[in-house]
Every structure is written in C-alpha cells, then in structure tokens.
C-alpha cells in the first residue's frame, strides 16, 4: 500500500513538474522571442528606411541629370534677353517627371516651357544655391503660379565659366508621393519624406497609418528631425501603437520615416507564440495521455490484483474445504495400514480419494480423477464424490456401485464432464480385493518380495461419459505383507522441463526403493521426487496417491 501511494505521488509530481517546466519555458521563450522580434523589426525597419532613402536620393539625382540635359539649349543664348529665353524653353519638350520645367536668368525672372512664368525666384534657396554653380534641391516647398506646393530642383547654366542662370524643375506633392511609392520596394509599413522640422514633404500614396490631416510628425511624436541619427519612434495614432524609424537621407536635413503599427509586430510575435503554444499543448496532451494510460493501467492492474487477491482468498478457503472432504483419519489397525495424499495443481483440483469401512471386515477404497482441472473439475468432483459415497453405502459390488453412480451422474451432465474411478472393496479377513475400474490408472500391486507391478485389466469408460454403461469386477487376492498403490495420472504424466514424463517405470522404481519404509514417508518422498522432476514449473496436474499395506493375520 505504501509503495502504491508513493508511486502515485511520483506520477503526479512528474506531471506537475513537467507542466511547470513547459510553462516556464514558454514564458521565457515568449518574453525573449517578443524582444527579439521587436529588435529585429526595428533593425529591419531602419535598414529598410536607409535603403529607401538612398534610392530616393538617386531618383532625385536622376531628375537633376535630366535637368542638366536641358542646360545645353542655353549655352549659346543671351538669357538676359527674356523673350529669347522664353522662346528657347518653349521649344523644348520637357523631360522627367517634373510638373514644370523652367529657366531663370540671374535676375530671377522665370519662364516655363508652357510659356507661363513662375514669377521671380531670386530669393528662393534653390536658385541661390544653383547660382553658386552647383546643382540644388529646395529644402522647403514653394507655392507655384497654380497654387500647388512644389519642390524645386535647379541646375546652373554656365557661360564662359560664369553662372548666368538656372534651369529648374518642380515636383508637386503627388509627384513626390509617386516617387516614394516607386522606391518603396518593401511591403512593410508606409514611408514619409520629412524635412528638418518634421513637416511631411511626401508620403506613400497607399499609406493607411498616418491620417491625411497630419502634416507634421511632431503632431505625433516629439522628434528632433534636425539630427542625422537613425531613431526608433513609438507613438500613438487614434490609440493605435505605432513603431517608426527615422533615417537621414543625406540631403538637406531631410529624413525618411518608415511607419508600422506595433500590432503587426505583435501579430508576428503572436503567430510565432501560437505555433509554440500549439507545440507545447501537443506535448502536454501527449504527456497527459501517456500519464493517463499509465494511471489507467495502474488502476487496472490494481483492480486485477485486488480481484485476483479476492479470488485467491476464496480459493484458499475452497482448497481447505476440498482437503477436508478427503478423509484423513487413516485407520490405525494391526491388519493394514492406509495412507493417502491429494495435491491439486491449482488451488483446487478434480482428483479425489476416499475410503470407508462399510463393516468391520470390509474397506472401500476409491481413487478418482475428474477430467480437466480447477474450479469446474472441483465442482464436479464434489458432486461425484458424494454420489459415489452414497451409492457405496447402499451396498453392492464395485461394478454395481459404479453402474448406479454413472447413471445418476449422467442424468445431469450437459458439459460431458467425466471422472475416472477406481473403486475396490477389500475383505480384510481374506485379503480378497474386488475392484472395478472406470477408466482410471491401473493399480500397482506388490506381492511378496517381487516388487510393485501394474495390474492391467481391460478398463471400462469413466463415470459420467455415457449412460447405461456396464462395468466389470476384477479380483486380486492380497497375501500378508502385500501392498497396493493407487494414483492419478498426475504421477506418471508429470513432465520435466525438457518434456520428459515421470512415467510408470520411475513411479514403480520409487515405490520399490521405499517399500521398506512407512507408507506416509513413501508417499511424501514420491511427491518430492515428482516435484523435483517437475523442476520450477507450476505443477502440471493434480497429484493424488493412496497406499495400502496389508498385514492380514500376520499383523505387523
């Protein structure tokens, strides 16, 4: 009981420990994986923003190169002459993705390729910069003649090493936005071009994250856009947590900002965690199933064991009852000695012996063996023994007793059980032994000093086999000091480990070896020899023996 209890504690302990370990592993995992995913995402976004911004810068440079190609028309022209300048620009077809391409002379006066003017640009940053002889991109947007917010690119026109004017091109926000989309090769998040005070110059056309009414990133998060450092920003838009990466594009103080809702990251994290949870749950379920099966098995074994114990307890009572059915008050007489043993192969068996004095001079001996073993044989044995005993009390020769017993037993024997019976009546005064044998082992008889021999007569069928059988009587005359040995087939048919049977010869040899000693000792030694022969195997069959020493008038 103590062992079983501690085994249960062990099992539950193991379950608890395993679940705890899995749980802790999961917590640690999800914590670290969440962090890792976030870090990786920030790094990814930063790299993404950097790549996009450099691509964007390249796109702008391409546009500058295109503007440069327009400069050649003005190399030979006196652009202080406004009309000449206007005619020349109107003769060009335009190039690139500009809204407008125009030309300005050193006074800042402008004329566009469509014949209109953008007013005087003398004070604009791009004009000023380009007039110093370098290509320029405006750092801020300007409102053009149509009222559009435009960004301007300018390249200088040089004549004889002197800057005489600029060719400029303008981008509206839409153009800038489309340029941003062109360079946004990653699906993740939205991209924004932001100047140094946070003003959004351009944004992904397909942006879903930042409301259109927001024109400056500082409305969302306080960020210093004047620095060139990469920065990770966390802010809320309509209660949605956003993650953004700001990276400098290397032009003016402009930055690129890549924006992604945190939920996207936590989704990835959640998806990963879900997969891990699935795996862990599978492991736990598998483990619990295993433990469950083990517990069920334990319970079954316990149940089986309990049932076995109960049956075993009942059977041991049955063993006792059965043993008590065999007479053990062996006669202590001067004219004969009688001893018998019955050892069932299982707790109870189908063998039995019996003896009784029907009068002062006559001893009835019975040796019987019911077909089969165990409980069915034992039940049949009980009834057969009672019937034969009763019939015997009513008198008659052995064959008459067996005939009557057979018919009574056959009346109710659906299962065709039968019992082999040797029944003999010894008249003690004369030594005449009349017996009838219903299919039982031949008796062994010792006459004088000749040693034990089987007395083989033709046997009748066993009791219970078929109705209305006729049985035969046989007679043996016992002389003083003769002996009789009765047994069941458990003796000769006992089997050794290598399949050899104990056999009649060995049985007779053993009898002869011990013939000088007491009956009880002979039978006990025979049993011991059979057990030894049998080895460690469970006994194969019930072993029952009865010995008679006849002293007659000689006494002992």
């Amino acid at each position, binding site marked *: 009981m103590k062992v079983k209890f501690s085994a249960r504690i062990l099992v539950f302990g193991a379950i608890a420990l395993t679940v705890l370990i899995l749980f802790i592993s999961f917590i640690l995992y999800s914590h670290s994986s969440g962090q890792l995913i976030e870090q990786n995402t920030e790094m990814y976004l930063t790299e993404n923003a950097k790549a996009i911004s450099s691509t964007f810068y390249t796109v702008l440079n391409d546009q500058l190169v295109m503007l440069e190609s327009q400069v050649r028309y003005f190399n030979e022209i006196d652009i202080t002459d406004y009309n000449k300048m206007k005619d020349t620009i109107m003769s060009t077809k335009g190039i690139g993705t500009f809204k407008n391409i125009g030309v300005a002379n050193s006074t800042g006066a402008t004329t566009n390729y469509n014949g209109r003017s953008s007013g005087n640009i003398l004070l604009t940053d791009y004009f000023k910069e380009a007039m110093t002889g370098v290509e320029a991109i405006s750092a801020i947007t300007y409102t053009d003649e149509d009222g559009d917010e435009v960004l301007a690119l300018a390249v200088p026109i040089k004549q004889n090493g002197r800057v005489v004017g600029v060719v400029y091109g303008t981008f509206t926000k839409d153009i800038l936005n489309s340029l941003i989309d062109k360079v946004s090769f990653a699906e993740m998040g939205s991209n924004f071009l932001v100047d140094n005070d946070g003003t959004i110059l351009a944004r992904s056309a397909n942006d879903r994250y930042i409301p259109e009414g927001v024109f400056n990133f500082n409305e969302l998060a306080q960020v210093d856009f004047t620095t060139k450092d990469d920065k990770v920003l966390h802010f809320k838009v309509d209660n949605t947590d956003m993650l953004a990466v700001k990276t400098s594009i290397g032009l003016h103080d402009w930055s690129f900002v890549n924006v992604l809702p945190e939920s996207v990251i936590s989704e990835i994290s959640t998806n990963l965690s879900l997969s891990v949870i699935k795996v862990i749950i599978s492991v736990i379920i598998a483990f619990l199933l295993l433990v469950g099966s083990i517990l069920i098995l334990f319970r079954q074994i316990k149940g089986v064991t309990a049932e076995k114990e109960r049956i075993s307890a009942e059977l041991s009572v049955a063993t006792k009852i059965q043993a008590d059915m065999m007479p053990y008050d062996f006669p202590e007489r001067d004219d004969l000695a009688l001893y018998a043993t019955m050892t069932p192969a299982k707790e109870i068996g189908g063998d039995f012996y019996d003896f009784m004095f029907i009068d002062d001079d006559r001893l009835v001996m019975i040796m019987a063996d019911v077909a*089969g*073993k165990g409980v069915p044989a034992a039940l049949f044995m009980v009834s057969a023994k009672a019937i034969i005993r009763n019939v015997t009390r009513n008198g008659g020769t052995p064959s008459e007793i067996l005939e009557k017993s057979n018919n009574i037993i056959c009346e109710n024997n659906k299962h065709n059980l039968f019992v*082999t019976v040797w029944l003999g009546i010894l008249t003690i005064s004369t030594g005449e032994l009349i017996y009838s044998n219903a299919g*039982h082992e031949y008796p062994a008889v010792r006459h004088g000093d000749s040693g034990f021999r089987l007395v083989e007569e*033709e*046997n*009748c069928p066993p009791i219970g086999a078929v109705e209305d059988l006729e049985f035969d009587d046989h007679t043996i005359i016992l002389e003083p000091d003769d002996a009789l040995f009765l047994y069941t*087939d458990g003796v000769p048919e006992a089997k050794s480990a290598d399949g050899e049977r104990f056999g009649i010869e060995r049985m007779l040899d053993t009898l002869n070896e011990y013939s000088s000693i007491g009956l009880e000792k002979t039978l006990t030694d025979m049993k011991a020899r059979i057990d030894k022969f049998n080895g460690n195997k469970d006994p194969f069959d019930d072993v029952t023996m009865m010995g008679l020493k006849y002293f007659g008038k000689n006494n002992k």
Partner: protein
Amino acid sequence: MNFEKTNNGTTLTVELVGEVDSMNTPELEEKLLKEIDGVKELIFDLKGLEYISSAGLRVLLTMQKTMKAQGSMIIRNTNEEVMEIFKVTGFVRLLNLV
C-alpha cells in the same frame, strides 16, 4: 497442439498433432464447435498426436455426442501411445476407432 482441418463438404477431417491437454483444449473445442454445423462425417486423424489428457478426451466425447445427433465420428491412425491412453481410460469402448 496443432490443428489441421480439411472441410470437404459435409466431411470434416481434423488432424491433431502434438499434445492435447487442459491448456489447449478450450481453443480446440471452440474451433470444433465453429466448424461442426452441417458436418455429417467427422474424422479425427491422430497420426501426429503424442499425448491426450482427460480434458482432451472430454472434447472427443463431446464431439462424439454431437455427431451422434447429426452423423458419425471416426478416429483413425491412432498410434500406440494414444491407444494406451484410450485403453486405460476405457475410451476404446466409447470411440469408433478405425
């Protein structure tokens, strides 16, 4: 025990090989009862039978009684050892040994 059967229409031939004892008779009886329906002639061939215990004899007796109602049962090729068992148990008087 080895159980070889050939079912030729209404004739069932059962070959018993090795040892028939209380360990394998339940199986033998179950198999026989499954096959016995409609059989007119049941033949036990004991050529290869080395030993038969009382439990095995009980099966032969049961089959004999069953076949009495629906046909016949014979036992053939009984070897010396098994014949000795039939003699001791008196079964020579019950069985149709050919």
